[in-house]
């Protein structure tokens, strides 16, 4: 620890902090422009220059490390004059766009102009008039407003590790651009836009719609995936205008992804229903909420009386809150009396590692996931750590993904070969001497190894558990998909799981449906009609006596329901989610779209059936704390759940292949989509809304197909055609379809890995 004096205030800090950090601790404000907490100091703008005693040169506070006894002056006449000149120079070339610039009101250049009192420009203004760049579907680029602070370049380099943009040319000709001025074609994560201090990079979904001083900010947690990022919902009059972030809130350090930043119009979607609908004949008739609850209560009571309590099954989506999940299962178990609660999640793979564990890790293995698409923020932490460690990242995936740029080892190949390779890898970790021994040794010898795996593949889960058994120091991170994938399991909404992860035995849904045991279905939010796991039962479900569907949107599943009740999305209710770290975080209601929450629906139906269940989030939370041992001592404001990590005798499950076609098909991802909320965002679907069959360049030549031609996939009696997309990283003989979007359910219902044939289509 060293002691420094800043503007006369003494403060003690670690010896490796910068003057800026020390000033923050001392409560002294130093103006900055090109500095950002998540980036390495750059020292470009010179705004943070301060005087250091006995040093003839002024030093930039953001880059200069403190020394014991250093005396720093942060404001005086000399510094004030320089700051004024710096802003004056920036304003010479800056277009006078404030009235039409989205950044107005939250613009660093405006703030500094005001703070430094720049009231005149002694030199001739010379703004350019370059056309605004709209080649990027989400981010508008107005290069004339750019102040060349370099934050966008640096975040794309140091954090995202894609290096999509950089400085071009020199001196006053410097511009930020892409390589060879190609149209922007990156992940569109929007990190660059989030750090731009001026209105040079703007959110096209928000563009021109509002002004920051009109907007109310609500802090909540994003519901697009399992990362659990803290977001700030900017809203006015119950419209969501923008999603923003902040470094100091939550666990995501101000990082978000394309879905969170640009997909929010799905909540404002005009296609959302406001009233319940009941099926009459072939049509749907609008009814009131009260009528809907009555219908539901009556039908469920009827089925229960006629066929028994086990004639009603529940299918729960991993998108609902912990509180809703708890109430749903209570309703199922206590009001209906059945244990038949199903979801696409399982209790087989529990969270263990956190983002902090990833940051501290010296060896990360990513097993068989397209991590940067599935869980973008976890992917970012992995990239930052790999970059910092200059390696120590090992990835297994059939084709190269964005992690290639920072991975020290990347194993690709046909899925069947990859599975054997992963098996060898795990065997080597367990002690066998084989071709993977070198890599395995790295895992065994690492101080803090982290294993990230796909929890939806039983084979991969087994591999991960075997690694954990052999290397107890390893932390496992299951890459869960949805915002509350883990929470609903903890609350007991997974097949064979009671609240608190207690086990019970129930038959599978397919069995029950095959034996025609279920007469009524309550489907909370899950779009089963486009989910491969439910492909085989959808038809039967459609034919049952009563199907209640609650969903924010009138989905394909709603179209097979008897009764549809529209409910709130995650920005419209309170509650909590448990993310892939096992962290419980509260969500806050930001807007009201005049629809009820799932909890309210359940409460009302229960009431009509003679039971009293709360829908108040606080009350439910108390119940959870009392009845779910696992959550008893957990702080719902970001506390971690301590899962019992016991690896008992492992049943050695290996991923299997179905079919005997020529090409191996694996589950890929559709860019920017997680398939549920995102399909209702006009902005995300504008870019990608059609699933594509990805094939290799060699195969495309062999089959004589080009981009956007049609090819049919044939597997075990199914023949479905898809548009072709040629992927240069796809190995020969391998194809993929996105599993996180509608369109491929029939194909994927056949199994996890498929051997298919490809049939050319004339069209």
């Amino acid at each position, binding site marked *: 620890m060293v002691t420094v004096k800043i503007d006369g205030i003494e403060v003690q800090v670690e010896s490796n902090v910068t003057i800026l950090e020390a000033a923050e601790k001392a409560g002294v404000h130093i103006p900055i422009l090109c500095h950002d907490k998540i980036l390495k100091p750059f020292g470009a703008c010179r705004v943070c220059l301060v005087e250091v005693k006995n040093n003839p040169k002024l030093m930039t506070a953001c880059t200069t490390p403190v020394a014991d006894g250093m005396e720093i002056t942060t404001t005086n006449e000399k510094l004030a004059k320089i700051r004024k000149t*710096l802003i004056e*120079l920036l304003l010479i070339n800056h277009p006078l766009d404030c009235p039409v610039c989205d950044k107005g009101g939250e613009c660093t250049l405006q703030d500094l102009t005001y703070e430094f009192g720049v009231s005149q420009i*002694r030199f001739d203004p010379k703004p350019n008039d370059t056309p605004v760049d709209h080649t990027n579907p989400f981010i508008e680029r107005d290069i004339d407003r750019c102040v060349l602070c370099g934050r966008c370049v640096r975040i794309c380099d140091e954090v995202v590790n894609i290096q999509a943009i950089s400085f071009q040319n*020199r001196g006053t000709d410097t511009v930020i651009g892409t390589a060879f001025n190609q149209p922007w074609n990156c992940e569109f994560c929007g990190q660059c836009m989030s750090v731009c201090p001026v209105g040079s990079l703007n959110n096209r979904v928000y563009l021109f719609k509002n002004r920051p001083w009109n907007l109310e900010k609500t802090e909540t947690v994003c519901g697009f995936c399992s990362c659990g990022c803290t977001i700030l919902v900017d809203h006015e009059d119950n419209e969501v205008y923008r999603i923003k972030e902040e470094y100091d809130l939550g666990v995501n350090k101000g990082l978000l992804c394309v879905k969170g930043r640009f997909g929010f119009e799905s909540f404002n979607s005009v296609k959302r229903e406001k009233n319940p609908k009941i099926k009459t004949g072939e049509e749907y008739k609008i009814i009131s909420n009260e009528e809907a609850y009555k219908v539901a209560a009556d039908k469920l009571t009827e089925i229960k009386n006629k066929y028994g309590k086990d004639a009603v099954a529940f299918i729960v989506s991993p998108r609902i809150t912990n509180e809703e999940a708890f109430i749903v299962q209570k309703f199922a178990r206590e009001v209906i009396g059945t244990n038949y609660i199903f979801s696409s999640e399982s209790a087989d793979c529990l969270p263990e590692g956190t983002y902090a564990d990833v940051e501290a890790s010296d060896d990360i293995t990513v097993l068989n996931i397209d991590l940067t698409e599935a869980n973008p923020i976890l992917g970012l932490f992995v990239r930052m750590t790999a970059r910092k460690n200059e390696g120590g990242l090992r990835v297994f995936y059939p084709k190269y993904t964005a992690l290639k740029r920072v991975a020290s080892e990347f194993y690709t190949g046909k899925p069947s070969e990859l599975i054997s390779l992963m098996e060898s890898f795990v065997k080597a970790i367990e002690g066998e001497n084989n071709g993977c021994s070198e890599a395995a040794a790295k895992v065994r010898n690492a101080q803090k190894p982290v294993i990230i795996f796909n929890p939806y593949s039983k084979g991969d889960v087994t591999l991960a558990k075997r690694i954990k058994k052999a290397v107890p120091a390893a932390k496992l991170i299951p890459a869960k998909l949805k915002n509350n994938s883990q929470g609903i399991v903890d609350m007991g909404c997974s097949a064979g799981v009671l609240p608190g992860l207690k086990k019970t035995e129930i038959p599978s849904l397919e069995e029950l449906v095959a034996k025609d045991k279920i007469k009524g279905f309550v489907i909370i939010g899950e779009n089963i009609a486009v989910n491969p796991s439910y492909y085989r039962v959808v038809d039967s479900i459609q034919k049952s006596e009563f199907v209640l569907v609650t969903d924010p949107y009138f989905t394909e599943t709603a179209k097979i329901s008897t009764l549809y009740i529209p409910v709130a999305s995650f920005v419209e209710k309170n509650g909590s989610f448990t993310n892939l770290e096992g962290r419980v975080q509260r969500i806050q209601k930001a807007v009201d779209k005049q629809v009820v929450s799932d909890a309210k629906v359940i409460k009302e139906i229960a009431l009509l059936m003679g039971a009293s269940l709360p829908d108040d989030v606080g009350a439910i939370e108390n119940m959870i704390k009392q009845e779910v041992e696992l959550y008893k001592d957990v702080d719902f404001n970001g506390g971690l759940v301590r899962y019992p990590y016991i690896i008992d005798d492992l049943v050695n499950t290996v991923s299997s292949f179905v079919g005997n076609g020529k090409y191996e098909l694996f589950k890929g991802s559709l860019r920017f989509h997680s398939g549920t909320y995102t399909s209702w965002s006009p902005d995300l679907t504008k870019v990608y809304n059609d699933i594509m069959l990805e094939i290799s360049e060699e195969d495309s030549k062999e089959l004589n197909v080009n981009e956007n031609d049609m090819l049919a996939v044939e597997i075990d009696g199914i023949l479905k055609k898809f548009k072709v997309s040629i992927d240069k990283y796809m190995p020969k003989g391998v194809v993929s379809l996105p599993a996180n979007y509608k369109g491929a359910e029939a194909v994927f219902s056949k199994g996890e890995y498929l051997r298919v044939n490809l049939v050319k289509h004339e069209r």
Partner: protein
Amino acid sequence: MSTLNDIIEVHICMGTAGVASGGHEVMEAFEQEFKKEGVPVVLKERNCKVKATGCRGLCARDVLVDIHLPGMEPITYEHVTPEMVPTIVQEHIGNGQVVEKWAAKKDYYDFYKLQKRYVLKNCGKVDPEDIDDYIAHGGYEAIKKVIREMTPEQVIEEVKKSGLRGRGGGGFPTGVKWGFCRASKGDLKYLICNADEGDPGAFMDRSVIEGNPHVVIEGMLIAAYAIGCKEGYIYCRAEYPLAIKRVKKAIKIAEERGFLGKNILGTNFEFHLHLKEGAGAFVCGEETALIASIEGERGMPRSRPPFPAVRGLWGKPTNVNNVETFANLPLIILDGADFYASMGTEKSKGTKIFALSGKVKSTGLVEVPMGITVRQLIFDVGGGIPKKRKFKAVQLGGPSGGCLPESLLDTPIDYDSLIAAGAMMGSGGVVVMDETNCMVNVAQFFLTFTQRESCGKCIPCRIGTKTMLDVLNRITSGQGREGDIENLLDLAQDIKTASLCGLGQTAPNPVITTIRYFRHEYEAHIRDKKCPARECAPLIEFVVADDRCKKCGICFKACPVGAITWEKGKVAYIDKSKCVKCRECIVNCPFNAID
């Protein structure tokens, strides 16, 4: 007396200037001549060797050829062309008769009188592409002494004692700098030779590398041994293809002879030297930008601290020195720090190489002991101002430096005196100006350069220099405004204080010094819309002054578009409708008769 025994040697200057003047053709002519029938008889059966050497210094007189006959003083011929060769061979080499009309005159030898060609002593004697020639002249003796007789600490002490200061412009005591890097923790340390030499008009480093590349390599070896560096880079600007060619060749042959690589001279000392070419950026002469460039990054400077001596190339301790600094080292080791310190002044030891250019008779490369005055440099070494014009100012230190007016001509040339006078030593560029140079134009020239070369990272340099340049452009085109001078000075101060690197910190210097000493010129441009030196075309009327015109007709002949009418015995007249303002008339008029 010629120190070469029994072999006749013909030394031909093959630095870039020599080559550009036809050095290759002259060399071929000599070789051809020696092979011709009957010539050996004429030469009385003696051996004749034609040798390419480095820069001799007086580049204005290229192609320079030295004839070394055994037992006689070497004779220098100036402006040699292939046509002159047969005569020289026949008469001088064959008959021992110097061809007086072509031989160098007194002024050539006056050029060398005040110089002390110490660092350059072998440049011009040694064939830069022949390592054995370098060894025959004492090459690689210094590193042998260092490895066999001295410890690294002793080497650093010796360099400190010598008082050697960085020759790249910074003037930082070299021994002290080495000490920082040596003290840094870590096994892997880098040594970098800055051969980027971006100053316009500077060619000191180029001449050293082209003329005697091995002295630089040897200097780097000494530094590497002292500091503990295993890897080294010579960063040479790509605009020096001849230097690059010679350095590559020198490194290769030095490796083959065991002077570079592992187990140098049979010891544990290893040093691997690589060449990295620049890519056309002046800013990459700044050490942190240079380091970024070697790393493959964009050549933008980085904040210091941390200093390269602690964290430099790829995060490792790095020491960067200039070409000339390295070239001094073998001499310091062989002649001793005390001898070295006996040259120069109290605080600036040794000699300095300067590149003399501009309005001076003897343009070229000179090496003088520290302490001689600017006046001596320009008038005694440089031969004074040609065309009978008057001295006006001299720019020292290139675009980072400042100008000195006549009143300061007696300033001694050493680091501190020049800074006190408002200029700086810089890397050694000296541009002399006469009364036909407009000082506002001079400032504009240098600022145009620095503005174009600004990397763009920091606000004050990127936008500030452009803003200053815009004001100067207005002034020189007749649109100057009241208050411009004050604004320029004010902005200049802020740019100097706030800029990230030396480029921005020194770019305003030419403007500041020209305003300080020639403010009246600025005022004339702004208030009277006139350019007193008649260099700024928009402010020149192009009217012949009847009272000063001597009716010589030179302007009439010089005008490329025939806009001047003149008859013998009559005053010249310029037709403004035809005049394209090229200023040929003004430049050529010996009587300053055109306004």
